[in-house]
């Protein structure tokens, strides 16, 4: 079974009363498939086609959405899921096709039109104002109710909805102080209070810890009982199987399949999503077997190395802020040995950004030391840290690690220009191109043409350029790998490229590099890392060998639930 996520079934046992618990056959479905097909759909899309220039984002799409159903839209990155949702919400206008709402044709020209119809959308990056309170954010979106802002009325309304749908938030809390999961709840409360009947959610689980995902699906369940239609985008198959009544799979902008969730397996969905036979998607299986082999080798290495070898990188009691400031590092201590990978699990904004920024000196340390191969890097410049052998895959490559207006090849050699000026002023452009071509001959990822400016590349293509530079091209990375700090290395990549990238990273480690891997994908962290470190509000709240880690425990630690 190439695609299984054992952790997901495990995490479902968190709440035994949960209606979404248990096996699929006992799955609570107040509206049966037959009921659904007998009632007319709330929204019916017919022949929707949306183009961006030459790209056909949505091609002749038919889709029915019923009240009282949870409808998952599944597809790879770039399959056209978000575009389709934005067509329904009125952000995108389709070139062809019609939309019917409750049986009559409607024109949805703008989000205002869709809101008037009772269609609401929760975007991935929420439409909330961090500086304002929850109640103020909700009030901002309510239709006008007079001049004076009645906080008590709005607070009461929020509390009523919170209780009804299990959406606990504190109305007086400032949005910047609440978690991503709570922000999502605020968005849902906003839509419910604005009388939306169709709720569209764009990748709602991507910002959540595992047990929060379960909570969200319980909320879906409650909403479904009250006749809401829930339409959500995801690319995670187990979620689809646990939470939805019906599933629509998109590939290359077209509907591959739409139908009841019952009876469909994860393997079916993968082959529909990818449009290829399962054997071709099995690099994950290969990696799994590599891991077994590797972890044996690593433990063997560790024993052989004994205590005589220096850590490749070591943080000793590093502080960047005072204790009661949740942003920053609070006494972070860890080390990574050569040939070892440390996975950092944390929800965005809990100190994982500061790890890298502190290493490069962009964030100043209040106290503590950072050692690279036993040498204190105090006072080192960013360039001397990078030259000492640190490869860095940045969280935000386009603004942190690239010059957006420069071409692919220029960006590839950005850090090593001194090697190409032949001691003079002029760059040896021919030499650069030759070296890039040679060095990348064996590189498994397809790069964009060398003459393209990187700001014209998609996120996935930018990521490939960074990977090529930091893992393959830089001289020390090829010959004597030392330290690789990798933020979300597979973000924006399709499944196959992502697997190839994971292999690249594993190879870097096996050549003796020490890796700090920061990823939102817990499965990826667990399948690659030797050790897992969990951070919450700048503190290390858990550290254990991967074999001893459970997703459930990591999820609890990540959200501070155990504190």
């Amino acid at each position, binding site marked *: 079974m190439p695609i299984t996520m054992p952790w997901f079934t495990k995490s479902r046992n968190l709440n035994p009363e949960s209606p979404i618990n248990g096996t699929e056959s006992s799955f609570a479905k107040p509206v049966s498939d037959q009921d659904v097909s007998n009632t007319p759909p709330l929204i019916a899309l017919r022949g929707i086609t949306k183009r961006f220039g030459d790209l056909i984002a949505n091609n002749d799409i038919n889709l029915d959405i019923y009240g009282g159903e949870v409808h998952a839209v599944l597809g790879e990155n770039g399959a056209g899921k978000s575009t389709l949702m934005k067509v329904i919400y009125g952000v995108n206008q389709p070139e062809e096709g019609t939309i019917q709402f409750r049986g009559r044709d409607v024109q949805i020209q703008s*989000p*205002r039109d869709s809101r008037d119809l009772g269609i609401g959308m929760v975007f991935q990056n929420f*439409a*909330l*104002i*961090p*500086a*304002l309170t929850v109640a*103020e954010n909700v*009030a*901002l*979106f309510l239709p*006008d*109710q*007079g*001049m*004076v*802002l009645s*906080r008590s009325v709005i607070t009461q309304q929020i509390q009523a909805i919170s209780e009804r749908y299990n959406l606990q938030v504190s109305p007086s809390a400032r949005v910047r102080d609440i978690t991503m999961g709570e922000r999502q709840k605020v968005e849902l409360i906003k839509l419910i209070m604005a009388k939306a009947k169709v709720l569209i959610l764009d990748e709602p689980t991507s910002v959540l810890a595992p047990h929060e995902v379960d909570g969200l699906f319980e909320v879906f369940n409650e909403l479904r009982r009250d006749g809401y239609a829930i339409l959500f985008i995801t690319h995670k198959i187990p979620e689809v199987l646990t939470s939805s009544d019906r599933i629509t799979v998109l590939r290359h902008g077209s509907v591959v399949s739409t139908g009841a969730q019952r009876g469909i397996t994860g393997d079916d969905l993968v082959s529909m999503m990818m449009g290829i036979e399962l054997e071709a998607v099995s690099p994950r299986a290969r990696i799994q077997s590599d891991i077994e082999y590797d972890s044996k080798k690593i433990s063997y290495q560790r024993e052989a190395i004994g205590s005589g070898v220096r850590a490749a990188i070591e943080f000793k009691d590093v502080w960047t802020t005072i204790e009661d400031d949740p942003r920053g590092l609070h006494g972070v201590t860890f080390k990574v040995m050569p040939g070892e990978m440390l996975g950092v699990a944390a929800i965005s904004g809990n100190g994982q950004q500061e790890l890298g920024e502190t290493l490069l000196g962009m964030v100043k340390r209040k106290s503590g030391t950072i050692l690279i191969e036993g040498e204190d890097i105090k006072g080192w410049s960013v360039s001397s840290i990078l030259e000492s052998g640190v490869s860095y895959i940045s969280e935000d490559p386009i603004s942190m690690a690239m010059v957006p207006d420069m071409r692919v090849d220029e960006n590839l050699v950005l850090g090593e220009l001194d090697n190409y000026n032949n001691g003079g002023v002029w760059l040896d452009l021919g030499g650069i191109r030759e070296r890039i071509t040679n060095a990348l001959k064996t590189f498994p990822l397809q790069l964009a043409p060398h003459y393209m400016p990187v700001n014209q590349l998609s996120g996935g293509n930018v990521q490939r350029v960074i990977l090529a530079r930091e893992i393959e091209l830089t001289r020390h990375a090829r010959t004597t790998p030392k330290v690789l700090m990798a933020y979300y290395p597979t973000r924006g990549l399709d499944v196959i490229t992502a697997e190839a990238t994971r292999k690249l990273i594993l190879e870097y480690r096996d050549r003796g590099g020490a890796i700090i891997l920061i990823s939102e994908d817990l499965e990826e962290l667990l399948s690659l890392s030797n050790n897992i470190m969990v951070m919450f509000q700048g503190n290390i709240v858990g550290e254990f060998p991967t074999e001893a880690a459970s997703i459930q425990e990591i999820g609890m630690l990540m959200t501070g639930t155990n504190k």
Partner: protein
Amino acid sequence: MNDIWLVLGGTLTGAVGPGISVLYATYGELITERAGRINLGIEGSMLMGACFGFIATVETGSVTLGVLSGMVGGSLLSLVLAYLVIYRNTNQLATGFALTLFGAGITAYAGRTYVDSTINGLNPITVPILSEIPKLGIALFEQDVLAYIAYILGPVLFLGLHYTRTGLSLKAVGESISVAYAAGRNPYMIQIVAIAMGGALAGLGGAQLSLGFTHTWSEGMTVGRGFVAVGLVIFAMWSPLRAMVGAFLFGGAIGLQLQLQTIGAPVSPFILDMLPYLIIIFVMSLWSRAAARAMPEGLKGVLRATT
């Protein structure tokens, strides 16, 4: 010893008068910045208010018309800024500064024949009972009508900002234009209105200066009070109530300087003239993390928070 008490008492009495014009300008800049824009032309708007308020009073004999003219003059100048920064997308700091210089020039020209004019300006109104409070009474309650309006305006702005939908819309625009738009607001119209109101309040401050405080017009008479207001908005962390504290601090510094000159303190008057501005520089250095957090998100591109 007696001298010190004399100076302190005089400072207190003198703190309110010079503070009122700055307070209006601070309110104006505060509304502008809450909408996510910064207006360095506020100094120019104050000069417009001082000059055209004075001219209108001389020509019509009506102080009320004078005050209104001052407000119109101030808001016209700020509307030029609104047009340039919102529709022409110019740099806010450079545009504001240019408009201050333009305001200084045009008022110097328009006001050149009025320098020796005399007016029957705004006169102090003594509030019964309240003015008999020891020490504070005379300082606070023997002022012109615009001072009393300024006292009330602080709490009114505070309530308006936090307890009305208009205030919520204003704050939302200052934090995120896209969210405000998604919530069905017209962000640019809100910003234009906020900038115009800001200019009108600065003009009112200028009018208070020439009609209520000095009863004369002279070229460049605001001497940087508009820029002081920009600093005070940051000191006030965008709160109208704290703005009152800041403005009276500045007023107090001017009062202290006048007192020291009166008793003939052995310090060069040029040094004493710098005192209020030194205090403003000191106040700005109190810039804290809290102020950075309070800053409307929309300003951060222009005024980089340094934390």
